[in-house]
């Protein structure tokens, strides 16, 4: 296993370099002048502009700039914004919100999604199954930002105005602790939750037909034990893979949720950076998310080997 992990880490390096290179290239060839963007509507003073360009090596050829950047990344230095703030610092400020949001969303997705899927699979064709199938189909069809507004209206406004329950707030308020994250996290989780529920349903229904489940029944085990010990254990293997791969996706998808609930996580940061054409911030955020993606996929693959003894990594 150890050797496998090392090999995977080595394999991750070209992916990291490729991804940052791609993003860096896009940013580099972005039309428009970041220095001008910094000055806003006024015309930038040519001398000051030239100084800024010198300072940030903006006159160097693309490949030189990229090399400076990537070697910095490996030293843990993500560069600085044009206002002179360290990108690492900015990420450090914004990141906790997004991580909390994604983690709460992840828990909701896993718990509610798997539970709904199991219930549907065990009542195949019955009312509850149909209800779960239809409601997940609706959740998949309604775009996240629409789901967000509707929940905001129903849970954030109407619940308070009509029933006096002031539990969920329309806008994110840090002082509310984990409660502040519940509604945004549910919105963020909704789409994946629906997929997890459907995937669990299909997977469990498939394993329920497996020969070893028939063996378990023939052993005279109680239905509950047959389902939990024999079917579910096997059915969850693909679900775990999906969940793991989705953790990075949740952080990437947080852009919209953060906008709806007015949170200042990395979604807000990158939206602002794209608008201001602040290349270092964009590349920094993407580099971080790529790293998270690479780490989570490695963890998922290792978990996979733990869950399924047939898989051996050499």
């Amino acid at each position, binding site marked *: 296993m150890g050797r496998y992990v090392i090999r995977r880490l080595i394999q991750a390096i070209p992916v990291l370099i490729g991804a940052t290179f791609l993003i860096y290239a896009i940013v580099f060839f972005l039309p428009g002048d970041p220095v001008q963007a910094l000055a806003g509507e006024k015309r930038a003073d040519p001398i000051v502009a030239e100084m800024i360009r010198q300072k940030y090596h903006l006159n160097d050829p693309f490949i030189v700039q990229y090399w400076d950047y990537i070697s910095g990344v490996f030293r843990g230095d993500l560069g600085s914004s044009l206002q002179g703030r360290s990108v690492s610092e900015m990420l450090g400020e914004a990141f906790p919100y997004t991580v909390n949001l994604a983690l709460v969303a992840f828990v909701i997705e896993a718990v509610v999604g798997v539970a709904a899927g199991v219930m549907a699979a065990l009542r195949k064709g019955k009312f509850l199954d149909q209800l779960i199938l239809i409601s997940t189909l609706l959740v998949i*069809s309604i775009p996240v*930002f*629409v789901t967000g*507004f509707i929940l905001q209206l129903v849970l954030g406004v109407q619940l308070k105005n009509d029933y006096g329950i002031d539990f969920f707030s329309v806008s994110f308020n840090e002082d509310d602790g984990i409660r502040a994250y519940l509604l945004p996290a549910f919105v963020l989780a909704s789409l994946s939750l629906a997929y997890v529920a459907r995937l669990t349903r299909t997977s469990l229904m498939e394993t329920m037909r497996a020969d070893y489940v028939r063996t378990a029944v023939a052993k005279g085990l109680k239905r509950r034990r047959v389902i939990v010990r024999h079917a579910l254990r096997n059915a969850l293997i693909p679900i775990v893979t999906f969940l793991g791969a989705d953790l990075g996706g949740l952080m*990437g998808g947080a*852009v919209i949720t953060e906008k*709806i609930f007015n949170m200042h996580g990395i979604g807000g940061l990158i939206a602002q950076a794209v608008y201001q054409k602040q290349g270092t911030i*964009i590349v920094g955020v*993407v580099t971080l998310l790529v790293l998270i*993606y690479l780490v989570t996929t490695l963890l998922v693959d290792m978990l996979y080997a733990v869950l399924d003894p047939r898989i051996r990594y050499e």
Partner: protein
Amino acid sequence: MSDTITKDASAPAGDNSPKATPAKKEKPERVASLWSDAVRDLRRNPLFIIGGVLVLALIVISIVPGWFTDGSPFANGACDLSHSLERPSAEHWFGYDVQGCDIYTRTVWGARNSIIVGILTTTTVTVVGALLGLWAGWKGGVIDSILSRITEIFFSIPTLLGGMLIMSMLPFAGNAYSVSLVMAVLGWPQIFRIMRASVLSNKNNDYVMAARALGAGAGRITFRHILPNAIAPVIVVAAISLGVFIGAEAALSYLGIGVQPPQISWGLMISDAQVRFLAAPHVLLFPAAVLSVTVLAFIMLGDAVRDALDPKLR
């Protein structure tokens, strides 16, 4: 299936599939029967019928919006500020938006961009992804390694962030075609992976070996034998992604980096309406509902196609 002809009692046949046996029919060829079974299945599937009717209606609306509404949203005097935010009425089913434009008219005319994005993106992604996947899976070796590494890079970049970045890089205002192009650039690796896996699993099948042994050339084997057998999972995913791409266009436009005004996009309409959402929810809810129904229709079609082409799930 042809081996059943010589099968007698002493042939080593399993008897564990009482369910399969009665349904067994003599079929000349696996591929042909898969497709004819699928067509028969689709015709009976209510999901397919409802989804299909909706999609047909949407396509007609997007080609000739004039059949469904008298006014054009681009005509002079189409909007009248004195009607701003008026509620729905018998003449104006969806009411007016903040600019005093008729929401129904705008919604009807907005269908075109969604349909264009959905179909164009899916077609591009499927053709590019499938051909590259076929190439990589069949050739193996260096080509496969390079293409697979490239897809890993694309997978590691969060789709939404990548989309935001490239859209903002384009030197002209976003429209349905540029949105499609950007989403195709980010979307092809998924189809590539499925196609490649599908080819690899089919490549060593007996019928391919047989075709090889009979002296069929690489091109003939690839296109006559492997492609038809490997394409089913690709079509399933492509059918489902149609709806997903339409939702993604709306998300990009909602974030202000997709289709740009004065063009009409449901995502843009939703974005414009969000500020006054609590005061005038109809401005947001009508385009949101139509968008959701559109995505739902395509996903229902996709689900029906998957059910028909994936006999394992029956």
